[in-house]
Structures are given as C-alpha cells and as structure tokens.
C-alpha cells in the first residue's frame, strides 16, 4: 500500500450500503432476488403505481437490530422513516424512503487491526432505507432509448456510517473487511461485492500534518471490491495532496471511481448538490422497538467472532493468533467446526490443534494460491476432517497426508480414494519395517558408524533411506524407534 506523502495527514470516513438478506423487499411483498429478468421482481408498490402504500418489512428491522447488537450500538426505541425527494427515472416514487434525523442504530464500534496495530473504529449511525432501481443503457443506446429495471427498487439496505476516524488507506480497508466480516457473520448480508450487496463510499480529506481542522472532503462512490477501495483512496489522497501542493484547492464533491482507468472522476459538486427536502414519511408510523423485541433477537444471535475467538483459546488451548484466524470470517469458523466434527476422537484439544494447524498452513496456502474463498474450498471441511482421521488411525503419516491433501485439492476425491489410487497406505507391520531397517543398516555402514560415534544427524540419513525403501509408506515413528533400538543394540 502506498504511504501517505510526508508532511500530510489523511482523514477517512466510510459509508457502507449493505443489502439485507430478507426474503422480500423493505416496503413491499415482492421477492428481493438478484439476477432475475428485468422487472419480474417488481410489484405495484415497487412501480409506485397510484394508490400504493409502503408497509415496513419486520425482517429488515430485525437485521438492523442484529447489527446494532453485534457492534454495541444503541438501538433507538423510536426512529422515523423520512422521504428523500429527487427525480430520477429509476426512482419510481420520486423519493427514496430512508431515515434521516432519527436512525434505528446509533453509535457502535468495530475493532480492526491495521499495520499490526489494533484500533477501534467509531460508528456514527446505521439506518434503514430502500434501494433504487437500475437504469440500463448497454445494448439499448443504439436504439436511442434507456431501459429501467425495477427489480432492485425497494431492496432493503442498512447504511452504516463511521466517524471520520481512519487515518490511512490501510485502516479504511481493514475496517471495510472487518465490517464485511461482521455483517456476513451475523447473516444479515451476503457480502457479495460484485453484485452490489456490500458497497462502500469513502469520504477522504487531507490536511498538513499537525493541523486540527479537517480538510475539504470528497466522497468516492462506485467501489465494488476491497482492492478497488484501496486503489481509489490511494489515488484520491495523491490527487488531493498534489492539487494543494500545486496551489489548488479541493472542492467538496462526489467522485466516481473508474476501475479500468484506476482514477476518480468528478460526478457532481456541492454547488449542484440537491435539496432533498427530507420530511417524515406520513405513510409510515414511527418505528418503535421494544426492549422485549431486542431481547428476543439478542437471545437468537449467533456467537460473535470475539466471543468465539476467546472460547477457542479457552476450550481448545489454541493460540490467540490461530483462534483469531479461525474466526476471521463465518466461513473460516464454520469450516473449522465442521472439520473438527468430522475428525471426531476423544482428544478434543489435540484434534482442534491439528485442524487449526492444517487450516492455517496447507489449507490457507492452497486458498491463497488459487485465490478462492474458504466457502468454495476444493477440499471441504468434511474431507479435511476425514483426511486427518487417517493420520489419527495410523493409515497415513503427517507427511503422507500432505501429499494426499495435494491430490485431493487437485480434485482426485476423498482421502481414501487417493490412498487407494496411489497405494499410499502406511506400513505399520513391524516385521516388514524390521526387514527394511536391517537392510538399510547393512547397506550403510558409514552412517551407522557415525551415529554410534555420537553424530545424531546420521540417524536422519538412515531414516530417509528406510522411508525411500518403503516408498514413503513406512510408519515414521516405528522406523525411528526400530532404528534407534537396532543401533544401540
């Protein structure tokens, strides 16, 4: 990541639109699904036909409450839906129903680790609102028309706003990742950035080091991956610093990030900022949330990452680092628990350590190399658990298991399939091992002599010879024992 130019400070705040995973839209009964044929998921309410009225989807409110509980916010006992008025073809009512003065979630904190340091990012608020539809120009412009798809119109969003409290691109990206982890962990958002389920707008300003007054900020929109967020903020920092150093002045405006050209472009300035004429929506009653309702949702909340991390340390004796890695996303935690269950066994602590070791090493390396999400891992948690089971029952050595894992990753099936196909069953027959050990001792008198002279390393060479002779299938522990016994005899 690029460093902040010397002598400058950066202040960043993020506004994140998270699409909530409710079955239906926030103010109508239409399904809220992505990717359907245009306008097949839009009802009379979504089309804003005359006479239609909004009815609040309780599910969306529950998502907001869950989020508030997860980040330690205050859940407002009474909040208000307001109308944000502006004309746009993909905004059917000519106003968006949002929350303005009294949002449902107030305050809250998200813990991040950036550049090795822990930090708390303060949230300002989170409010419920409806999404707009989509204008479609591609493929239609030759006909001189634009299309409108209202499938997305009315999809529930929770807009999560931070304080301007992040001072580097790293912090902003770490926050975005942590927030992504939380909303997907508690199951209110699928986190799919490509489909627009998790969209970040970044407010970026720069100031000379030591100044206390905030610089003029620009809002960057249209960032649909963490990598683009990083690049967009970096670009914007450079642009603003260069502008000021060249004697210019930053103008408050909304800028669009263009990933193809890796730059931000002015979309609209504050001068042509619209007056949205917010006022409380008279079609909707104030949203009242009782302590009992919050209690009910609290009781049904999943264990949060920090809680699970602490439990893993206490229950399984895992290192804080491993426990942190395993709880870095719901996908990781789910994988760990499933693999551990598949492995089974009496020694839960031992098993947990083994699963954790494998996940943080071989699995992490493979996921990283192929750039895939753990949820789409080529080796499922169940399969990994079974593979580790084959170490526990002595079928495989640890080393053999790594080879089997590589074959499994390549798509050759379950551990047992690979073992059968490659004849990789570990040899535990002591008679067979004794014969191989005797042969190796007889054939390597020099090494034997060195070992007996006190050179411990010589044992490794002999061990390697035995393993080679066994085509790596001999039980390594037995080979070591046998060698030591024979040589000391």
């Amino acid at each position, binding site marked *: 990541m690029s460093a902040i130019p010397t002598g400058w400070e950066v202040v960043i705040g993020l506004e994140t639109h998270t699409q909530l995973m409710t079955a239906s839209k926030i103010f109508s009964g239409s399904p809220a699904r992505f990717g359907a044929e245009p306008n097949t998921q839009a009802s009379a309410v979504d089309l804003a036909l*005359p*006479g239609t*009225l909004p009815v609040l989807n309780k599910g969306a409110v529950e998502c907001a409450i869950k989020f508030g509980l997860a980040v330690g916010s205050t859940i407002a006992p009474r909040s208000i839906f307001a109308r944000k008025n502006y*004309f746009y*073809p993909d905004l*059917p009512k000519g106003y968006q129903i949002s929350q303005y003065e009294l949002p449902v979630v107030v305050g809250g904190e998200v813990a991040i680790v950036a550049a090795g340091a822990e930090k708390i990012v303060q949230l300002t608020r989170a409010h419920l609102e409806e999404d707009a539809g989509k204008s479609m120009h591609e493929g239609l412009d030759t006909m001189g028309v634009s299309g409108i798809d209202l499938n997305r119109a009315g999809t529930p969003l929770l807009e999560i706003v931070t304080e301007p409290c992040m001072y580097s691109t790293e912090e902003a990206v770490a926050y975005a990742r942590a927030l992504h982890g939380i909303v997907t962990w508690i199951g209110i958002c699928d986190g799919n950035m490509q489909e627009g389920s998790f969209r970040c707008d970044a407010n970026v300003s720069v100031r000379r080091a030591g100044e206390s007054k905030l610089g003029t900020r620009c809002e960057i929109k249209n960032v649909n991956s963490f990598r683009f967020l990083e690049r967009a903020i970096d670009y914007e920092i450079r642009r603003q610093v260069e502008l000021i150093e060249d004697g210019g002045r930053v103008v408050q405006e909304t800028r669009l990030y263009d990933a193809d050209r890796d730059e931000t472009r002015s979309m609209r300035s504050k001068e042509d900022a619209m007056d949205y004429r917010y006022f409380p929506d*008279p079609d909707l009653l104030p949203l009242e949330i009782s302590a009992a309702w919050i209690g009910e949702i609290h009781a049904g909340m999943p264990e949060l990452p920090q809680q699970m991390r602490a439990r893993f340390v206490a229950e399984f004796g895992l290192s804080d680092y491993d426990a942190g890695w395993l709880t870095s996303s719901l996908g990781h935690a789910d994988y760990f628990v499933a693999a551990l269950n598949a492995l089974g066994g009496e020694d839960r602590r031992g098993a947990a350590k083994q699963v954790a070791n494998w996940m943080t090493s071989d699995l992490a390396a493979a996921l990283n190399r192929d750039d895939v999400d753990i949820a789409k891992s080529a080796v499922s948690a169940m399969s990994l658990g079974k593979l580790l089971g084959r170490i526990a029952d002595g079928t495989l050595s640890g080393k053999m298991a790594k080879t089997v894992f590589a074959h499994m990753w390549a798509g050759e099936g379950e551990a047992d399939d690979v073992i059968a196909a490659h004849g990789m069953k570990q040899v535990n027959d002591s008679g067979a091992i004794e014969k191989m050990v005797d042969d190796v001792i007889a054939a390597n008198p020099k090494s034997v002599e060195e070992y007996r002279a006190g050179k411990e390393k010589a044992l490794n060479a002999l061990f390697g010879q035995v393993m080679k002779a066994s085509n790596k299938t001999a039980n390594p522990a037995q080979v070591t024992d046998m060698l030591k016994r024979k040589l000391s005899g």
Partner: protein
Amino acid sequence: MNYSRASIKSLRDELDAKRVSATELAEYFLDKAERALSLNTYLHVDRGLTLLQAKEADERIARGETGPLTGIPVAHKDIFVTRGWRSTAGSKILADYVSPFDAAVVQKLHEGAGMVCLGKLNCDEFAMGSSNENSAFGPVKNPWNTQKIPGGSSGASAAVIAAGLAPAATGTDTGGSLRQPAAMCGITAIKPTYGSVSRYGMIAFASSLDQGGPMARSAEDCAALLDAMAGFDERDSTSMPAAESIWTGFSKASALHASTGAPLQGVRIGVPREFFAEGLSTDVASAVESAIREFEKLGAVRVDISLPRTRLSIPAYYVIAPAEASSNLSRFDGVRYGHRAKDYRDLTDMIERSRAEGFGAEVKRRIFTGAYVLSHGYYDAYYLQAQRVRRLIGQDFQDAFKSCDFIMGPVAPTTAWDIGAKSSDPVAMYLEDIFTLGVSLAGLPGMSVPCGFGTDNMPVGLQIIGNYFDEGRMLAVAHRYQQVTDWHQRAPEAFP
C-alpha cells in the same frame, strides 16, 4: 317507487322482495346518468362492466347470500383506483390510466358487500379544490342550480346523490372534501376518523389527512356504507382497527332512549363560538342555529365551547397538505405510466415537460408551495411550525370534548357560489375551508347533514364533529335529527 329518491334500506326491500333486480336498478341509474350529462359528473361509464357486476349481485341474491348492500349501485370518486374503469384523479396526467388493482374501498364494497359500480366520478384534480372547477375534465354543476359549483373536491359524488343519479357514492376528504360538497348539494356525508378506512388504492394527495368516506341520502345510509368501507387493512400502515363496527355502534346508540320523547337526553352539543364569527353568512348561521335548536328539542343540551386556534387551521393546513402533496405527486413523471410529453431533449426535460403539461394550475401551485416549505432553510419555519400548530389544534378539540359529546356548527361559511366566481382568487377559496380543516388536521370524524336553505335557495349543511372512533354515535344522532326533519329528502326541481 322513485328509485332516485329511495333510501338504501327501501332499495334493499325492493331487491329482497324481487320487485326489482340489481340489473334493473343498475340500468335505471345508468340511463338516468345518461340523461344528465350536462352536470358533467361521470368521467367514465362502462355499461358492460356495470351490468356484469349487477349480474353477479343478482346471482348472490338468488343464492341467498345477501348483505345489506348487495345489489345496491354505487359510484366512485375518481381518486379510488379501479380495475376496468379508468382512474384519472381528475388529471390530464392520468387521463388514460387503468389500474391493475382495485382500491381497498372499491374491493370491500364490490367483492365484500356486493355493491354494483356505476362508474367513476369527476372531482378536483388530485382532490385539490373546494369547487370542482379544478378538474382537467371540466367543472361539475350543482343540481340545485347549474350555474353554481357543487363544492369540492368530491363535487360529482355529492351531485350524483343530489340529482338522484346514484343512491350512494364514495368520496375522499383531506380538508373538507366530503363534508363541504355534501353541504352544498344538500346530501349527507361522513369523513371517519383518520385510519378507519384504508387508503390503499386512494390516489394520495396528503397522506396524513386523506380519508375516504361515504356520501348518501341519509345518516342511516351512510352508516350502512361506512360499515362496509371501514376496517383494518395491513396494506395501509396508518390503518387502525376499531373496537366495534360502525353498524354496531350506530344500532346501539339508535336504540338508546328510543321510545322516549327525548331520545337525545344527556347528549351535550358543543357550539364553538369561533364557528359563528365574521365571514359566516347570516342565512347559513340561521339554518345551523335552527338545526341546533332541533337537537335541543330532542333532549340534547347546548354547551358553549371555544376552539381558539380555528383560524390557524388554514395556514397550518396549507403548509402540511401541499408539503405532502409535493412529494406524493413526484411519482407522476411520465416514466412508467401516465402522460409523457411528445417532444423532449433529455431525461430531465422529459420529466419537466410531462409534468408541466400534465398538471393543472392549482396542482402546480400546491407543488410549488409544498416544495418551498420543505426546502432547506424554510423547513423549520413552515413545516415544523405547522406540525406544532396541528398538535395544538388537536389539543383544542380534546379540551372541548371534556365538556361536550359532539361539536356542531356550519360546514362552510356560505352556500354554493357561482361557477367562476372565485377561481381567480385561490386564497378566497382556501378561506372557505375554515370550518372543516381543523377536523382533518386533528384526524377526527366529521359529517355534513342537510339543515336548510340559504336565501339563494341553495342547501346548507350542519357539521357534526365527534371524538375518535365515535362515528356510530354521530350517525345515530344525525339519524334522530333526520327522523324529525325532511331537509335530506328535498330534491332539486330539475331532478325530482
């Protein structure tokens, strides 16, 4: 029997006795409307659709599945959306619009009660007006004198009842639009408590004020109609369930002291002194005074009360209603339905031209006003201040109800005026709403009952205001009055 003057109850008897069919009744009223086109009441009639519903009703009657309203014809204000009939809201911007669904009220009266729809009725554009001159489809004429306005915005709904073109009609009231035309056409109407009739399918003017209600020949007919219209609807978040049905409340209250000479004994009638101040014409004042004396004869007690913020209801209303309207009418942009300008340069131009061409002058005036009072820097001084005044007006009524059961006074300061007389002076027109706006701002039920005639021989209406969800008792009190008076049975000479 003269069906044009018959009560719903007597039409029910005729239908049940098989002396007339729902189809014959529908045809009678359709024919009658066809001969009264000059009143300009109906915006859309479809004989085929009406007769289809009449046939259904006849089948229901034949099967014995008869409710109090089965087979009774009803006409709908064009603010209610209907499948089949166009739904224009009296606006050019929706001139050809047909809704894919029925309004909750339309559905309840048709599917629920078995009523037969006669068609859609003219009204002020988007219900904005007090004279029905703001319709894009021309003014409606008052059956009592066709030089006069019928009142508004539910002008045609009142006119068809007065002219005997329908036994029942629906209307909507945002600041007096049910009560004022009822008064000016000499018929009975009730605006129920805000939230008791679903707004689903009512083309919105001002959401926090809009309320549908019935218009008919008598309080008893209104009770039967409102009973079928009211009820909780999950599609309207501001809808509220009532503790008992309208008809139950009406019947219970009607039975009270029924056999005595003073059936209204114990009923306290509050008469607000602010309703009898300057601006009230003397003939309206004396008709209303006589009506109150009639209630006293029935055993009621008159109590002098004060509604001190009556005058403030005008500015408060004309801030809040336009504010909500400016937002509610934003959906009419020519993009998805409704009028779209033929020529335009780009998207913005298309929206601007479509709206400029589609909306009439009064609608534009209110959109401008509404956008202004909501704008940055003006919001607190206008919109928030008006909301504060609104709360105080509601408090005034609650204070008044501590010493009375009902409030009575005039509906409007004058009788119906000549068409064109006030159309160039919007503020003069707004002042006509002074006695009805407070009730709307407070969300209270209010009704209009015919109580005499002015020196110009035009009808005068008595306003009865009740407390929340007290419609049953209000209608019963009005019914008592109508049992001892015949103002509600008078017919215009031209429409016997």
